[in-house]
Every structure is written in structure tokens, then in C-alpha cells.
């Protein structure tokens, strides 16, 4: 009896203290995830919209250009924030967005969401990195495990990691291995495993020097000029891009060739997660709009989803027929990103497309304009 009481005392004390510790774990600073997210949380009521996505968004969309273009189109006072973060994958984006929506933003009317793919595979060989750990809250972990059923076979270096004498055999082998990875990360996140140094640095380690700084974020509402990225990989990718000009042309030709394809979303796409994402954004009082960046990829699944009415709206900037001006090599910094001139161009086109969308739907750009909404404009 006393031993059982001892076990109970252990569990109770552990849970209480563990929850207190986990509440103090800061977001990871890598690639500006922390500073950019926390800046938005601190200035949530300054923005009518956000872009959320990967580095294509981070470097490619300039809020101030977008706002100015929208003002030129007769919609002044609109403010958008760029929540693009380098390397932000599908479920990490969902987790970050949930954090923003959980803060119950009143002014936020639009969530521009970059190409939701719901790819649940963890591509890095070493999964124990802070970015992965951070987004593995229990809910997102379960979503990711669920989404594994739609994943394609991982590359050999990952399949090797998933091999185990305990669950050998069958197509499910790598899925079980991948599920175990997610569970491990979920447990690390839930119990705050290894987060002590980060907590210490945050509270006792002096000023936060994570890049970009809050001042840099404020100056451009979250956009970063890729040419200023201090990561050595960014410069290297640029040099490779410049050294191999034909590679981009080949990518574009391949993209144009594949553009007409329309894969079946019923096979290989996590529709449940998409519908859930849309519902969550709407429940927070905002309207989702999906968009595809121009990075030499055909984004056929997004087009399929759009054709089937699964997306509330899609701004397909990858389409060579609709946005040929975003294709030339000169507006790109490397294979995956626009340079600052390209970013200006894309931001203007984005504002124009948004304005068109507003005219088509008759919706107001800002929530405070909703009382003065004019009758919906006629559709073409």
C-alpha cells in the first residue's frame, strides 16, 4: 500500500513540475522561427493578413510593396505580415498557425497559406533537431502520423533508418518506423526533453541575438532580402544557380510540360488535414487563401484540389500562362527563391490578384471595412 502511495506521489510530483518546466520552453530560434512568430504575436492587432509558408514566402513576398499596391488599387490601410520561415514544412506550418490562431487575433481577416502539402515524412536523417521537436505537440504529432498513409515511399537513406528486426516486413515497415520517429519527437516535446539549455539561455543568457532581429522584422514586416541571409547555404545555392543557367531553363520546361496534369487527390493527398486546416482558420474568424510560388515546380495537386472545389481560393503564381513574368531567370536568386526584384514583382501581382478576388467575391479587404461593404462586383 505504501509502495503504491510512493508511486502515486512520484507521478503527481513529476507531472506538476514537468508541466511547469515545459511551459517555459522557448520556440527554437533557427531560421527566425522564434523572432518572427513572437513578433507577430506581440503585434497581432497590427495586421489584416498574414502570409505563412516556407522560404519561398519569406524571401519572395514584400508586405510593404503589397500594401502599397493594394492602396493604389483603392484599398488603403491594409497591412500584411510575412510569416514565411526557411525550411518550414507542412505540419510545422500548421503548428505555427495554430499558435497564432490560439491567440485569437481580432483584426486578422486573411490567411494566405503557401501550398499545403501535408507531407508527414521527416526528411533529415537526424530527427532530433529543435525545429522538429517544437512542432510535435500531441495534436500535430497525431495528425502527422495519420498523414503518413498518404506519403510516398521515403528515399533509401530514410528507409534504412526505418528497418528494424522488430517490425520487419511488408509495405508498412517504413510507415511504422516513421510513426516511431513522430512519437519520439512528440514525447520529447511533451516532456521537454533536452530543453534545459534553451530555457537557461532564454532567461539568463543575455539578449536574444537570433536572426532576424525584431528591428529587422519590423522594418519590412517580416520580409527578408535573401541576399542578406547570413546562412552559408544561401550564398552557395546562389552561386550554383548562377553557374548553371541552363538548369533553371530545364526545370521550367519540365514544369510547363507537367502543368496540365491533374492527379487524383483521393490517392496520395491528406484531404482531411486540408479540410481541418480550412475549418480552423475560419473558426478563428479569418478566411484562408492558398497560393503557389514560382519555383519551377508544376504544383499539379493544388490545381486538382482547386478544380474539385476543395480550396476556398487558389492563387496559382506558378502557372506559366498566367504569370510568365515570374519565370525569367533574372528575377530569381536561386532555384527555390526570388531575388528582391522578383519579390517586388510577385508582391505586386499578389496584391492585384487579391484585389481581383475581392472584387469577384465582394468581400471587404479589412474587417473594419465590413460595415461599409459595397455590393459584390459582377463576375466576369
Amino acid at each position, binding site marked *: 500500500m505504501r509502495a503504491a502511495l510512493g508511486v502515486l506521489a512520484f507521478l503527481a510530483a513529476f507531472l506538476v513540475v514537468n508541466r511547469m518546466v515545459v511551459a517555459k520552453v522557448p520556440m527554437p530560434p533557427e531560421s527566425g522561427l522564434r523572432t518572427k512568430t513572437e513578433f507577430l504575436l506581440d503585434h497581432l492587432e497590427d495586421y489584416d493578413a498574414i502570409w505563412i509558408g516556407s522560404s519561398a514566402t519569406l524571401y519572395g513576398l514584400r508586405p510593404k510593396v503589397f500594401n502599397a499596391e493594394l492602396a493604389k488599387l483603392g484599398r488603403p490601410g491594409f497591412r500584411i505580415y510575412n510569416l514565411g520561415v526557411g525550411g518550414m514544412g507542412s505540419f510545422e506550418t500548421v503548428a505555427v498557425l495554430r499558435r497564432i490562431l490560439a491567440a485569437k487575433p481580432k483584426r486578422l481577416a486573411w490567411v494566405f497559406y503557401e501550398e499545403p502539402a501535408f507531407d508527414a515524412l521527416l526528411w533529415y536523417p537526424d530527427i532530433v533537431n529543435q525545429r522538429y521537436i517544437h512542432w510535435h505537440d500531441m495534436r500535430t504529432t497525431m495528425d502527422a502520423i495519420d498523414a503518413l498513409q498518404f506519403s510516398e515511399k521515403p528515399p533509401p537513406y530514410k528507409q534504412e533508418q526505418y528497418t528494424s528486426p522488430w517490425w520487419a516486413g511488408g509495405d508498412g515497415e517504413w510507415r511504422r518506423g516513421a510513426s516511431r520517429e513522430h512519437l519520439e519527437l512528440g514525447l520529447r516535446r511533451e516532456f521537454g526533453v533536452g530543453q534545459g*539549455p534553451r530555457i*537557461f539561455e532564454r532567461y539568463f543568457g543575455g539578449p536574444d541575438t537570433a536572426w532576424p532581429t525584431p528591428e529587422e522584422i519590423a522594418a519590412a514586416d517580416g520580409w527578408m532580402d535573401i541576399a542578406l541571409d547570413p546562412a552559408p547555404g544561401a550564398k552557395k545555392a546562389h552561386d550554383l544557380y548562377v553557374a548553371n543557367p541552363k538548369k533553371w531553363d530545364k526545370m521550367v520546361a519540365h514544369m510547363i510540360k507537367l502543368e496540365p496534369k491533374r492527379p487524383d487527390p483521393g490517392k496520395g493527398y491528406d484531404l482531411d488535414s486540408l479540410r481541418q486546416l480550412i475549418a480552423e482558420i475560419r473558426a478563428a474568424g479569418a478566411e484562408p487563401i492558398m497560393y503557389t510560388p514560382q519555383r519551377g515546380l508544376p504544383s499539379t495537386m493544388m490545381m486538382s484540389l482547386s478544380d474539385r472545389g476543395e480550396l476556398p481560393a487558389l492563387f496559382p503564381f506558378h502557372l506559366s500562362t498566367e504569370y510568365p513574368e515570374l519565370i525569367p531567370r533574372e528575377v530569381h536568386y536561386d532555384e527555390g527563391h526570388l531575388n528582391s526584384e522578383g519579390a517586388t514583382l510577385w508582391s505586386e501581382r499578389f496584391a492585384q490578384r487579391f484585389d481581383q478576388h475581392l472584387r469577384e467575391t465582394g468581400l471587404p479587404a479589412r474587417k473594419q471595412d465590413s460595415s461599409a461593404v459595397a455590393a459584390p462586383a459582377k463576375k466576369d
Partner: protein
Amino acid sequence: MLFVEFRFLFFFAAILVVNWSIRRNTPRKVFLLISSYAFYAGWDWRFLGLIWFSTIVDWFAGAGIHRHIGNRAKQRAWLGLSLAGNLGLLGTFKYFDFFSQTAQEFLGWLGVGASLPVLNLVLPVGISFYTFQTLSYSLDIYFGKLKPARNFLDLALFVGFFPQLVAGPIVLAKEFLGQLDEKRTRSHVRVRWALVLFFVGFIKKSCLSDALSPFIESVYLAPDAVDSFAAWMGVLAFSGQLYFDFSGYTDMAIACAALLGYKLPKNFDAPYLSLSMGELWKRWHITLGRWFFEYVYVPLGGSRRGVARSMWNLWLVFVLSAIWHGAGMTYILWGVIHATFIVLERMSLGSWIKRLPALGRLLYVHFIWLVTLTIFRSHSIQGALDITKSMLFGGPAQVPDGVTAPLVPSWILPTLLGAFLVHVVWQKAELERRWAELSPEAFGAVLGVAVALAIPWISTNPAPYIYFAF
């Protein structure tokens, strides 16, 4: 499989349940032996053959020595078999390449071009530990301190018992075989004490040693780029890491064995509170020192053949124990310096040091320990010299091109100082005993808080135990 891995916790929990549910002694020992081999096979099953070889050689050698009591020549022959078998294994896998390369360099220096063979063998985990352990069996029978094991199973379990198989403590046959004679009973297991010890060992390894590892590696990978502060912090961190890593493993090994009903010897006794180098070595890796004392120092004559011979024996034992740690000039140099200080302490230096206040003696010990640890940790003698130069005379004026100077994380110094203070209080106030003696409810609550506070400090970069490489 490391003791700090989750899979080990599951593995050990399963072993505990099965072990205590087996009623008879022999099946229980068979189960423990199979489990031990499975544990070792987790690293590399191919090297199980070496353990079996060592066990079989000593089974026959022990029997042969015992059979020829009264005939020293034949006993010596059987002992020779044991020595050749075990030291041959160790020599082949651990030292062959080092001596071959050193001989080749020496011949080259003499102007004799020679190409000597290099085996490039992987060092089997734990080979330095289990060969010494097995040797203690035949040596004790030879010296008349032990009778042969009653059966092969007992000897195999003594050699292969998984808690101590890969990194000690180096158990002597005479202190373990007797424990196998009778069935262990649960009433003798000090569960709470063992849990505390396991937890403390876990903290030492996973929260401290592994956390310090990346910084230490960055310092010793760029010895010509570290400034004075980074050099001191690097060696201070390594001093902490070495202790946390090895004593942490030992704590967990002793705790695991205790939970299974077996007693393993103490391996550390707060060595960093020592007031002389001689004392430090009596409190650091106690079972290795004991082994060399019993099987090298005493047979060489110990202190029975005059002061000079005694000093030589002492010096030799310390140099040999340094070479036990690894095949490399850095280990030999480290051993020579330590051996020299220990010999000097037995002479005039010792009486001079005794006149110092306790703090001064503590500083003397740590100064020698830290400066010589740079040699122990460095990849080369030149690297050790670079870091020692930075420590004693300041760092390089300019960092070489293409080298990144290591940054000292802000938490390193507070963590090391905090750990040292906790260590002092832990020892002086006997907190381990006091904690284990709390009521079950209070014990559970304190353990719950401690585990919750420890988990955030588990390193995300788990590294193998340092002593696995020895």
C-alpha cells in the same frame, strides 16, 4: 545499448521482471547470462566470440592451475595460457597498430625504411575490462586466494554479467563468484537506494557529460585557435565530463546489479575532493587501481624490497595503468607525468604539500589534473602543447585561416560550479543515504520532482561512454 537509452530501460525492466519471477538459482543465472550476451550483441554480436574465448581459456587455465597445486612450474604454464590468451586479445585488438606504427616511425627516424603491418581492427567494447576481470580469476587461483568456479555457468556469468561487462567496475572473481552460489532474495535488495544511484548516474551521464561533449570537442578540434579562457573552460569541462561519464556509468552499473540482487564494488569516492595526486588515484577508478596493486605492484615486490624498488614499482604501475587507457603517446606521456608526481609525493613533495592549507592542496591537485588532462584528451602531443600554452601563457594572437575559434556557452561555468557544489554537499551530507531512507511517499515525491527537473537537461546529442574507448 547505452544505460541512458529508453530502450535500455525497457530491456532492464523486462530482465528485472523475469529474473525475479524465476524461482530457482540455476535457471535464473542462465537467464542472466543469455540477457547479458544479448545486451553485448546490441553493439556487435561478432565480438561475443572474444568473450567466449576469454571465458573458455580461463575456465581451463583455472582448472589447470588448481589441479597442479604444489607444482609451480605447471601452474605457471597454465597461468601463461591465461595471460597469453587475455593479453594476446588485448594486444591484438588494442595495441597492435599503435606499436606497429610507432616502431615504423622509429625505424624511419633511424633511417631504416620499413613497412610494418597494420590490422585496422575495431576495438571491441569492454575488452579492457573483461580481460582484466577474467585474468583476476586465474591469477587469484594461482596465488591461492580462490578456488575454481563450481561450474562453467558461474564463470561465464562472472565474465559476462551485463551491468559491468562493458565499462566496469572491474570485479574480482573472489568477490563475485561467491554471490552466485546461493539464490539472491528480494528482501536483500535496497530498492530505493538503487533507484537513487541509477538516477544520479543517469544525470551524470545524460544531463552533464553529454551536454558538455560538443563544446569540449570544438575546443580540442581547434587547439591552435583557442584563447586562454576557452582553453581553461575546455579542460575544466572535460574534467567534469570524464568524471560524470565514467562514474555515472559505474553508478548505473552498481544500481542495476543491486536491483538484480548482486553487489558490485565501489569505483569512485569523490576523487575531486582529494588533497594529493596519490589520494586522487585511490579514489578514481578504484577497481583498476586495486587490480594493478594486487596483480602487478605486489608481485613485483611492492614496498618490501626497499624504497627505490618500491618507487620504481609504483611508477611502473601508474605508467601501465595509463597505457591501459589507450594506445597512444598522449596516454603514455600522461601516465609518466602522473606516475612521477605520485612518486615525488612519496618523497619530499609530499611533506611540502602537507604543509599547505586544504584549499591550497585542492588547487594543487586540480592544477596538475587539469593541465595533464589536456594531454589525455588531445588528439596529438602538438595539440596538447597548443592548449597547454593557451592555458598557461595566453592564446594565439591570430586564429589560423579556415579555423573557427570555439565559443564558450554561457551555461558551462555555472553548470560546472553548480555540479561541483552539489557534489560536495551530496558527499558531505550523505544525501544519497538520507534520500533512500525517506518514507515511500516522500521518496516518491522527491524523485518525481528530481526526474521532472532532470529531463530538460538530457542531452539531445547522446554520446557513447568515454571509457568504452579504453
